[in-house]
């Protein structure tokens, strides 16, 4: 709340009118609060005016004592200086009151009901943990984290990024747990690129200066506050974006490929077992298609004679080389996966059945591919989805093709070379000063 020259207020008014005159939900209303007349500027779609007014009326506007304002829930008084700031406030759903005598106040009103309530997660299936999930509202999300983690070390910095459209983000970390270098590098990047537009997750990684082409995601996204809390405890920096129901933990390290933070809910032995399985599935999903080609056409001597004969039999009559065969079926498999992902839940199974059972059966019977290939590729696909997150799985899915092609040229040596390259690549990857091959973000140890 501030007093300005009436002239300035006049100019502010006209400025607002001008700027938003084509926005049909922008309104200017005369309201009476505590017996005084005000002009209220706001977006109808964002502000619940009647409710706000009734609350304001209850408190009354004390022109002198600002403290009283601040102490009241959901109200905020600020000092708008420029027109631009007013715009921003309006767009963020604030209510601007212009009174007589050059009185200007920006008020945090009761919002229109635009956010959904906290619900159970949609894209993750936790087994043994809290079931609440993040929503779109930033404050709700921060609240969820605060509630899950009662600690005075929890630091939450809110910033806004972008120039055209402004996005609020919150930087959350645990002081003392997260490495200072990590926090520093993240803050520095956010500072440097504060004017970049931020609408997608990719924008976020670009703002943080992560490489454009990465084989594996440099962050972990999660819908679960519980998981986010674990990430914080593991020394990661979490970034929450407003209107985005996922939390992003930076930086990802190699063990995130096979461990989810929710594993800690299980007994230790089970956790180790599950992680081993996932590690194995990582290796399998990358190598299996390549291995099929290796065993089938480049280095058949690796197969035992019994197996070699049956494999040869199953390929009898298949007209093209095993690389093409594998590529064809892989393409089909990717199509099925992509087709099922966005379908409504009640159609998904149908596609799976048509694609998996009917097509698979038919394609083998038509001698277009060998049945061993189907087994191998399905095993590879299944192990692919045994990985911890969909994002990780995509990178692995992609790299599988590299392995496939290289090993079709160089056999087992090619397979080895492809794996070695991945190790080198992982070793050279460093995000937010943390090398990708580290045991944990907390310590300084670096390895796989």
């Amino acid at each position, binding site marked *: 709340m501030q007093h300005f020259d009436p002239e300035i207020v006049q100019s502010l008014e006209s400025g607002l009118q001008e700027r938003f005159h084509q926005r049909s939900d922008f309104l200017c209303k005369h309201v009476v609060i505590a017996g005084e007349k005000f002009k209220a500027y706001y977006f109808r779609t964002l502000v619940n005016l009647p409710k706000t007014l009734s609350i304001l009326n209850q408190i009354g506007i004390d022109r002198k004592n600002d403290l009283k304002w601040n102490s009241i829930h959901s109200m905020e008084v600020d000092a708008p200086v420029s027109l631009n700031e007013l715009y921003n406030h309006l767009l963020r759903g604030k209510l601007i009151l212009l009174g007589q005598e050059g009185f200007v106040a920006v008020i945090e009103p009761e919002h229109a009901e635009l956010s959904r309530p906290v619900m159970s997660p949609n894209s993750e299936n936790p087994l043994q943990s809290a079931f609440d999930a993040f929503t779109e509202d930033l404050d709700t999300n921060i609240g969820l984290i605060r509630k899950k983690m009662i600690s005075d070390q929890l630091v939450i910095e809110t910033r806004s990024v972008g120039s055209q459209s402004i996005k609020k983000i919150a930087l959350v970390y645990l002081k003392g747990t997260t490495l200072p270098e990590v926090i520093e590098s993240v803050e520095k990047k956010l500072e440097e690129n504060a004017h970049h537009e931020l609408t997608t997750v990719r924008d976020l990684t670009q703002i943080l200066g992560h490489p454009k082409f990465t084989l594996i995601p440099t962050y972990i996204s999660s819908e679960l506050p519980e998981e986010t809390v674990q990430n914080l405890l593991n020394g990661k920096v979490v970034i929450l974006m407003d209107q985005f129901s996922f939390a992003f933990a930076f930086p990802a390290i190699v063990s995130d490929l096979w461990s989810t933070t929710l594993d800690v809910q299980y007994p230790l032995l089970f956790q180790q077992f599950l992680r081993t399985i996932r590690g194995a599935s990582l290796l399998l999903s990358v190598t299996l298609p390549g291995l099929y080609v290796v065993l089938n056409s480049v280095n*058949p001597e690796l197969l035992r004679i019994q197996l070699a004969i049956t494999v*040869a039999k199953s390929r009898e009559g298949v007209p093209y080389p095993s*690389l093409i065969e594998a590529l064809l079926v892989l393409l089909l498999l990717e199509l099925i996966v992509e087709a099922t992902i966005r379908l409504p839940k009640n159609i998904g199974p149908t596609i799976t059945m048509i694609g998996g059972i009917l097509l698979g059966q038919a394609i083998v019977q038509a001698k277009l591919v060998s049945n061993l290939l189907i087994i191998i590729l399905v095993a590879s696909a299944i192990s692919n989805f045994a990985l911890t997150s969909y994002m990780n799985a995509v990178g692995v899915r992609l790299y599988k093709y590299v392995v496939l092609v290289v090993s079709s*040229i160089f056999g087992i040596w090619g397979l080895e070379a492809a794996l070695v390259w991945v190790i080198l690549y992982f070793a050279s990857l460093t995000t937010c000063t943390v090398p990708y091959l580290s045991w944990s973000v907390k310590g300084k140890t670096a390895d796989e």
Partner: protein
Amino acid sequence: MKSFRVKIIAVIMGMMVLLEGCWDMKDINKAYLPVVMGIGKGSKEKYKIILEIPDAAGKIQFLEKEAKSISKAIDLIRTDSEKSINLVHLRLMLFDRKVVDDGIRDIIDYAVRANDISIKGMIAIVDADFDKTLYHVISPTPEISTYDFFSKEAGWTPNQSLVTIWEAYRSQNSYSEDMAVPLLQNGERTIYAFKGTAVMREDRMVGKLNREETFLYNLFKGNYSGGTIEIAENTSVLIKQSKIKHHRHWSDKGPSLATDITLDVVIAESPSGKSNVQIEKEVRDQLNRNFEMTLKKIKGYRSDVLGIGVMYRPQLTEEQIKNWKSKWFPKLEQKINVRVNVINEILIKDEAHLDQTFIR
């Protein structure tokens, strides 16, 4: 612009590799995978090579060519066959007796040198009509029974000797060892019948051990896993375990070796009334006698198939090892002392009938 050019170059290089590459790509169904190779004497040329190729249906395909060398013959087979030939799964090399008489050194060297033949394959000598044995098919054949015949996990028994290519190569080069190669013939109902063991000196066959002698040979070598000894009519024992201990001595006259063989046996068949002690004695006497004869026979061949030279290695100098076969082995004094211990774990008690008489 610059990075664009780099990318183009990378793509072109990649395409070159891809288009020109796949040198070794040959699908498994486009190659024959022979399991057995027969090496016989050709009618016109030096070698006749017969390859046995199994398929999943249980049939066996035979391919045959003659040439002056083995690889040439295989090349000729490859020329005529509709698929390529991949020798990587070759598991058994069968030599014709006539080839062996000319020496097998070159063939073994070939097998070791060829990088597509695994040196863990077996070798054997056909001591019958070569073609008949090679072309002998029993139907329906499971695809790899030729290999299983020698597999310790499948069909091998202590009555058979067995030697792999690498063992043959080792014996061939060794100063202190000779090899023993199994002799085969086509079976009636089975693919092969075991005829005995060829005793080789260097790469020539000098003698033959029959089946019982082969058994003793295996016993001595410690290649042991279960087997029966027949003593007299109706009496046979089953060997459960054998322990072998060699006592080596070296005097000016030359080496002398005393071997203690302790056998744990169970009685498989025995006529009633024969006590364990008696059986023990009979087994012992018989084995001692047989061993003595076998050893004499082997020594007569002047071939160290038992690998005694290797046992003496700790005591010999390099010079002496080099002279082992020519100088020291003929001077070898060898004694064998068999001890037998009847452990009765089979269902019938030894003294049961005595108890019965007591009750009466």
